């Protein structure tokens, strides 16, 4: 192999290739046994296995070449220990700045009041949308903090990762490919389980394995320093990948990944825009819609199951059909509706802001956890101890995390912010529920939730009245019986 001349890495690479080949063989055999009735799976596995091994050997040959690059990379990585924290700080500030700008703009609008001139309204609306779009576009282009990192030789995470990926190629890439393969393979198996609790448990085991894999990926770039016994806090700070760690923490606490959250926000934004436009047109088109809807084939079968589709289709067609907000008249019901949706959107911006702050608190603390773990590992390495288990590292991270996170969650600052975020979410939901009902369902031939809630209240009151009467009656019977046959006390 090409690593023969490199005494430092020979055993490392050989071992990786040998062990992984055997791991894949073992896995392929086991999978074949499990899916013995599905012939095409055998064929796919065999092909995959060969491709995997070829790739593995190919990458091993690259190892020696990339070692030189590694030395160069290491020399470049001499920035301060604060760099990792900067990533989160920048992420947070980015979120804050966007939200502040947009929110302040909205506040200004609100303070000025709604103009009676539709053109003014329209301009403001367009400016606002433009600003928002800019933000989204900016994020699509990987956001300012990525630019900041590109300008900073150390914080150029992508470059750093690339170099490490090359250096650790045979180990890192193949392990990741292997675990992706394994996770994907196991991913859907729970569906075949007859018992839901067992299926949930299997899913839980899978997720745990997935988290472990992500944790492994975080530490893998540092393994070379473990091997060379020169791992310390400096190397840790240099090699820690904040992006990956953020993704790991997001998963651990089930935060939405940034991109998903942005998509979600975007979806909301579009939805509210549609609502405003609908508010503008009022429900003049409702009758026409209803007549069309009733003729639709899905209306003949299960209309209530299709309600969401009706709503979505209607909304989309309305968005296309109606004119923008510039057609708004002066203070009328439609303008009022538009204001309500505006408020909802304002709340969403605030929510975004506060939620970012909340997440930032968690990220900050998660860095403390990882730093402490790294310190512990560094001490072990310096003491000549072996790092022989990623599971143990992960478990230590969780133990340290429990301590750190529970202190954070218990703090006044976190508690206040967390409950504030929760209230905002609920308020948005409540407002949207009311408006949705008002706009769509109040004219539908179905009971709305508000109406059902009134029915529930009446039923509750009637039942309570009945029970109280029943209790009074029973009590009177007991008193009568007592009078007839006094009990000994």
């Amino acid at each position, binding site marked *: 192999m090409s690593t023969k001349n490199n005494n430092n890495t020979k055993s490392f690479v050989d071992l990786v290739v040998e062990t992984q080949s055997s791991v894949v063989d073992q896995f392929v055999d*086991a999978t074949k046994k499990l899916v013995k009735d599905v012939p095409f799976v055998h064929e796919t596995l065999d092909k995959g296995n060969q491709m995997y091994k070829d790739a593995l050997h190919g990458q091993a040959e690259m190892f020696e070449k990339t070692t030189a690059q590694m030395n160069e990379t290491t020399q470049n990585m001499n920035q301060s220990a604060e760099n990792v924290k900067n990533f989160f700080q920048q992420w947070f500030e980015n979120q804050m700045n966007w939200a502040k700008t947009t929110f302040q703009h909205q506040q200004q609008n609100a303070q000025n009041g709604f103009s009676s001139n539709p053109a003014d309204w329209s301009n403001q609306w367009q400016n606002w949308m433009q600003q928002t779009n800019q933000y989204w576009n900016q994020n699509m282009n990987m956001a300012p903090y990525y630019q900041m990192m590109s300008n900073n030789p150390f914080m150029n995470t992508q470059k750093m990762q690339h170099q490490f990926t090359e250096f650790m190629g045979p180990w890192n890439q193949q392990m990741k490919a292997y675990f992706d393969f394994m996770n994907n393979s196991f991913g859907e198996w729970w569906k075949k389980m007859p018992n839901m609790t067992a299926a949930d448990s299997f899913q839980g085991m899978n997720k745990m394995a997935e988290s472990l894999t992500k944790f492994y990926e975080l530490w893998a770039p540092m393994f070379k320093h473990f091997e060379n016994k020169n791992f310390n806090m400096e190397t840790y700070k240099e090699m820690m990948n904040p992006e990956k760690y953020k993704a790991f923490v997001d998963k651990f606490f089930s935060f939405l990944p940034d991109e998903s959250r942005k998509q979600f926000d975007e979806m909301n934004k579009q939805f509210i825009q549609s609502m405003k436009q609908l508010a503008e047109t009022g429900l003049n088109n409702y009758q026409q819609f209803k007549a069309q809807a009733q003729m639709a084939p899905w209306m003949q079968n299960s209309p209530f199951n299709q309600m969401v589709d009706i709503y979505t289709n209607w909304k989309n067609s309305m968005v296309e059909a109606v004119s923008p907000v510039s057609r708004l008249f002066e203070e009328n019901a439609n303008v009022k509706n538009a204001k309500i949706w505006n408020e909802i959107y304002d709340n969403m911006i605030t929510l975004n802001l506060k939620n970012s702050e909340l997440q930032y608190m968690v990220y900050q603390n998660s860095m403390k956890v990882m730093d402490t773990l790294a310190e512990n590992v560094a001490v072990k390495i310096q003491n000549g101890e072996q790092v022989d288990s990623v599971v143990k590292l992960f478990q230590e991270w969780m133990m340290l995390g429990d301590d750190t*996170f529970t202190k954070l969650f218990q703090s006044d600052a976190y508690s206040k912010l967390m409950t504030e975020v929760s209230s905002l979410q*609920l308020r948005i939901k409540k407002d949207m529920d009311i408006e949705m009902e008002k706009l769509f369902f109040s004219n539908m031939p179905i009971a709305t939730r508000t109406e059902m809630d009134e029915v529930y209240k009446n039923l509750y009151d009637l039942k309570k009245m009945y029970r109280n009467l029943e209790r009074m009656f029973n009590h009177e019977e007991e008193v009568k019986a007592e009078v007839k046959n006094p009990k000994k006390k």
Partner: protein
Amino acid sequence: MLNTNSILQEFVEINDKLQKGYQTLKQIEEVDVATTPKELVWECDKVKMYHYIRETPPKCDVPVLVSFAIMNRHDVLDLQPDRSLMKKLLEEGLDIYIMDWGYPSRADMYLTMEDYILGYLNDAIDFVRRRHKVNKIHKMGICQGGLFSMIYASIHPEKLKTLTTYVAPYDFEDANCNMLYNWAKHLDVDTMVDTVGVVGADMLNNAFSMLKPSMDVAKYFGVMDMMEDKDKLMNFLRMERWKNDCPDLSGEMYRKYIKDLFRDNKLIKGTFELGGHKVDLKNMTVPFLNVYATEDNIIPNKSTIAVMDRIGSTDKQLYAFPGGHIGVFVGAKSQKELAPSIAKWVMARSS
């Protein structure tokens, strides 16, 4: 230094365990809990009361009514035959009834704490009293069920022979006890209840899981090692089933629970009111056994113990159980030591 061989081997083992886990879990068709025989004897709306069937006559004539927290299912008290507080208490000679609070839906969002305590619980107690032709019964309450039983006992001490509570929260003053106490102080409960009507079990479970964030990941390391031990695996699965089977909470009940108890600590302060009754703990004069778990991370010990000095009972006793919140019902020590001690304490006060 790095031991690559052991790290690779570790991952191979994990994947091997995952495969074995799949094969084992695939075979499991049923995860049964609460199998001790019992019959339905009373129901009102979604609330039911069961009577445990005894093979032998009870050792005392005064029956016991057990009620668990409304936010969890009572099944954990009878999780499996060898870990069943109910079964053990039956074996010790008690005659036991148990409340099943049911699964509230949006239609139940107006149910108040008064409806639960002075409505359902009171009606069930009256039913048992009539059925056994006794004036007083023994009452046991667990966690939130203990708190509600304490409130009931303060209003209707004349209907109870004794009160035993397990890991119940009474004093909510110290917000630093744990994060849930602090969160409750800041929670905008009005917006929450007005929005959702019934408070989702998932939301509450998420809050509880934050008490030990790693728990939902860490537990699976242990599970993977259980795959060849069917008994251990089934124990785990039963507990999982119970933990995932949580009812939603009526919004109005939750509103008062958070505002009056968690936030304003009215019960301890002596200002709590329910259904027109001023709830004075000094009126709680029935013999009282207060069980707390020394390692309880959900209900802080000081919250449980604080009630001792405020009640009117002269016959009162603290029982420190060495273990955690759930260990009180399912731990081996619970079966061996706690259940017999409680049964003995209750029976001694049955005459």
